[in-house]
């Protein structure tokens, strides 16, 4: 298929662009296969706006006489408006954008066409390999091994080819366990707490069904992670009744009789369709321009978004608490083990592991706990909060996770190497990107699409020093402690940086950020100067002393 077929009117002049907090600008609109480009060539301030078609969530058109207006709502929640003279042009452009922003085939997506303008210093596709992770692990314990049982993605289609499992469980046993777990997602190591040797495992629900099936290998696998005489916790991200209902469909949960050393705790983390509804309601509230305070608060409350944040953070804190304070191993799962499970395990690691609060460490966490762990990004992030179509796979699971990270970041402003912009950037790229990182739903799909060969990795770009500098938190000072966030409602806030990003004037907040950077930078410069002078002085004095002695 040629993109040109979809573009009926490639260019329109005298188009007026409206954005909140900006003056309207007149310019030329061009459509290409992947971008919508608006450029104004006014002498005082020429500006260009490039928008990926895949970035567009929904598009509305309306007419006043022959002046057409297109309202474009983006996946990063931005809303822009284009006034296009001429009814036909407007209709053509609108329908082209609509077609181009909803292409079915992954291989037509921009990452397959994108040619980077920067020099690749390090290929992001191989920056974070599980083998490296395992090497680190082997230096502290020999209880684990790398298993290639899933090399052909035959045991579990949503798992990566290599996983870390207890040493005493062989591949045959793993195959059996896979049959006992939803989607073949047998328990694997998610995190090893060096401080006390406790482990966090993740999996999907066991397929106990109504007649209480059991699997000896499964029991052996999870018990292998326990210290003798100690108990472990199973954190089930579903409430008890949901877990019980799941049995009717062949699912279920670990029963005490068969897992006597494990105690089950049920938490209630909402599933994806509920989250998507909540997301849509929240964004609606944030775009409501009315001046009424009551409506704002009740809409915020009705969206339930902050409730989800609180529940998720609480579950993650609980998992971390079991590991760090109770000295117990933890197994986390929900139903499929690809959504709420990953939210909990990754947040728990941010609380427990200082490494996950560095830029590289956080990237590694995303690769390990989200991409390799098989979170179906393409399904979940196909549409954002403005889409009208009711497809049932979309859900802001990853955004909710990022929001929770932001909440912890807000409470521990000096403990993270990255800043808020880094989280916002990840949100944007998860939904639409020139990079191939978030394409596909699993490593299996990514391998089939040959993404590492055909597309550029987000990490190749982000980890370049000039990009990295934009994402650094000036206040960062490594904090080796476990950080326990408060989950009280008073401590949780709406993430303005995402939800009110386009609705608030950013100038003053940017000034504040600049000032923070300036204060720290100036301090470091002075330190360097003083240290240099001190050394110089000490040298001179030493010389003098020598001279005096002579």
């Amino acid at each position: 298929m040629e993109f040109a077929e979809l573009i009926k009117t490639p260019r329109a002049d005298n188009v007026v662009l409206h954005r909140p907090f900006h003056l309207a600008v007149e310019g030329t609109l061009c459509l290409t296969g992947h971008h919508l480009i608006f450029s104004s060539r006014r002498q005082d301030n020429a500006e260009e706006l490039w928008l990926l078609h895949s970035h567009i969530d929904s598009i509305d058109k309306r007419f006043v006489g022959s002046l057409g207006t297109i309202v474009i709502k983006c996946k990063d929640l931005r809303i822009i408006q284009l006034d296009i003279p001429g009814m036909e042009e407007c209709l053509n452009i609108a329908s082209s954008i609509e077609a181009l922003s909803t292409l079915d085939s992954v291989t037509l997506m921009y990452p397959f066409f994108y040619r980077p303008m920067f020099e690749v210093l390090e290929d992001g596709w191989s920056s974070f390999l599980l083998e490296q992770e395992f090497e680190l692990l082997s230096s502290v314990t020999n209880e684990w091994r790398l298993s290639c049982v899933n090399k052909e993605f035959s045991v579990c289609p949503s798992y990566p080819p290599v996983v870390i499992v207890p040493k005493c469980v062989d591949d045959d046993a793993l195959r059996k366990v896979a049959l006992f777990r939803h989607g073949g997602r047998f328990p694997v190591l998610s995190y090893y707490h060096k401080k006390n040797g406790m482990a966090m495992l993740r999996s999907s629900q066991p397929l106990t069904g109504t007649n209480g099936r059991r699997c000896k290998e499964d029991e052996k696998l999870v018990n292998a992670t326990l210290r003798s005489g100690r108990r472990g916790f199973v954190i089930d991200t579903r409430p008890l009744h949901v877990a019980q209902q799941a049995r009717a469909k062949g699912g279920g949960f670990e029963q005490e009789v068969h897992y006597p050393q494990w105690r089950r705790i049920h938490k209630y983390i909402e599933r994806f369709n509920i989250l998507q509804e909540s997301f849509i309601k929240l964004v609606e509230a944030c775009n409501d321009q009315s001046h009424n305070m009551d409506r704002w608060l009740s809409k915020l409350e009705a969206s339930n978004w902050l409730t989800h944040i609180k529940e998720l953070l609480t579950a993650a804190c609980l998992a971390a608490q079991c590991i760090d304070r109770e000295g117990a191993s933890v197994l986390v799962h929900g139903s499929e083990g690809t959504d709420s499970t990953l939210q909990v395990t990754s947040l728990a690691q941010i609380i427990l592991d200082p490494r996950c609060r560095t830029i590289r460490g956080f990237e590694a966490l995303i690769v390990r706990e989200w991409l390799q762990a098989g979170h179906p990004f393409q399904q979940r992030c196909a549409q954002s909060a403005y889409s009208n179509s009711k497809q049932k796979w979309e859900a802001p699971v990853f955004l909710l996770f990022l929001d929770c990270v932001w909440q912890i970041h807000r409470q521990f402003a000096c403990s993270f190497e990255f800043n808020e912009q880094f989280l916002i950037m990840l949100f944007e790229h998860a939904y639409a990107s020139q990079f191939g990182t978030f394409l596909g739903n699993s490593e299996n799909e990514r391998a089939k699409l040959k993404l590492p060969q055909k597309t550029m990795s987000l990490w190749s770009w982000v980890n370049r020093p000039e990009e990295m500098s934009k994402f650094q938190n000036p206040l960062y000072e490594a904090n080796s402690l476990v950080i326990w966030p408060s989950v009280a409602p008073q401590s949780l806030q709406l993430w303005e940086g995402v939800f009110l990003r386009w609705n608030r004037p950013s100038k003053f907040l940017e000034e504040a950020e600049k000032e923070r950077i300036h204060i720290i930078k100036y301090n470091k410069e002075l330190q360097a100067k003083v240290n240099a002078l001190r050394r110089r002085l000490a040298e001179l004095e030493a010389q003098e002393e020598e001279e005096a002695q002579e």
Partner: protein
Amino acid sequence: NVRLLDRLSSRRAVVGTLYLTATHVIFVENGSETRKETWVLHSQISSIEKQATTATGCPLLIRCKNFQVIQLVIPQERDCHDVYISLIRLARPVKYEELYCFSFNPKLDKKEREQGWKLVDLNEEYNRMGVPNNYWQISDVNRDYGVCDSYPTEVYVPKSATAHIIVGSSKFRSRRRFPALSYYCKSNNASICRSSQPLSGFSARCLEDEQMLQAIRKANPGSDFIYVVDTRPKLNAMANRAAGKGYENEDNYSNIKFQFIGIENIHVMRNSLQKMLEVCELKSPSMSDFLWGLENSGWLKHIKAIMDAGIFIAKAVAEEGVSVLVHCSDGWDRTAQVCSVASLLLDPYYRTMKGFMVLIEKDWVSFGHKFNHRYGNLDGDPKEISPVIDQFIECVWQLMEQFPCAFEFNERFLIHIQHHIYSCQFGNFLCNSQKERRELKIKERTYSLWAHLWKNRADYLNPLYRPDHSQSQGTLHPQIAPCNFLYKFWSGMYNRFEKGLHPRQSVTDYLMAVKEETQQLEEELEVLQERLANLQKSQSGNNKVKSKQQDQSKQFGLYTSNNSLANTPQEYSNDLKSFPSRSPSQGDEDSALILTQDNLKSSDPDLSANSDQESGVEDLSCRSPSGGGCLPSEDSGKDSDEAVFLAG
């Protein structure tokens, strides 16, 4: 053997001894080496509740005006009753002389005290604004409080308003509070004036009052009308007409534009705060409970109404160049709020530390805001109590959140001012009017808060403030819609003593410490450069630099202490508590397991560092509220007379 309970977690309680003194309730922890103390001023106590006796003792709940809540359990019912009775009496003094400011002695000599009272000088302030000038003059019509006893002796009025007009107008205004100047905008002659409501009833008129408003208009030659802003809801204002009061009729006054801005009255505000505090006190509320309760309290709606009124006036003055007359009923609550918010938006001076003191002195203290009645310093009518200035202080905080670089002072400054409005430790906010304060000879007998804050100003600086920033200059233009200007719940104020709810790492404190260090580095750099120059010049002498190097390493030590913050998990799950952390079937191994766990816990740095996190202690030490010791510790002896809790 009194127990102090932690509100957030019933598991944590400390045993100690309770002392009652003439001015404070003091709780001292037993046992631990630190012997931590909690001090509460009697004047801070807003209510005491004796609850039903339980097996463990008799619980006593003390709620404070600075939003601290203390829950004590006293073993003997009789003791509890005695404490209760004493506190009820002590918390409700009947004479001004009983208040703490008359016994508080910060060991300053007379001259220092006088200097302190001179720090904020309103005459100087009016001169700074640019009056007197061709349009405005100072009037001595109220010199013996003869016209209006709740006004200051010196008021600024339009030049064309004769004494006859002023007196005539005052007779037509509630409590004779005639229109007087609150703020004058030098650049365009527009002004903000304030008064009380006119006694217009259904049809009454007053020629002098009409002339007075005319005079205000004439004092701004650039505009042919003035706004008259009635800050009450229209319904309330109309109801007042039946009592012979009311609002200006546009037909009777030439060239006015009349505007209602619905800010609710003190009773609504009192109830609203009450409701919000109930939400704050909820034990482990869900997100919906909290948001619903917050909305239901209406508090943020009221804050927004006050802010919107201020924004309207600031816009009229700055953008339209039109003068505004503001009033409510008596012109001492809502009017004070709105005038001071508008001034703050208009004039960057009021966003400095000194300017903010001046602003409170000008719009609140001098114009007879009834501090004693509103904040219940003396035992009085509970219906008079209302968080009027608290709301203004919150408006300032909300603005600080929107304009992080615009204010010279930080959040702590606001919180400490709020505290001292209730503490009665300084004389500034005593009584209901200037007249009463003069009669009590406040300035001779008590100390000024402003001097105290000024002395410690290093602790109140906003590290992001720079006078050359765009936000630090000119008028602030806040957004109006809630989705553009997010009004937030101020947990730093209303959950001030629940340290566990606040961000564990304070950006402000961190930046202040960095700036402090920067300053030292600058000084050291200078010294070093000098030495280097000397050394190179003379190439002789053998001085050593070691002392300086030690200084430096000390600084770095402070940094880390700033970062290793007290921190423990909350109760994330009820399930976990009931779970025995060891298996009952394991018999012999149990004790060994307990030991390992204990070892683990005591060697855990964040656990042992945790101690001061949730005791809800008074931290008004003005020195290092974070407890991190990251601030310059000055002479610690000097402040200890204050209602402070020193963690050491």
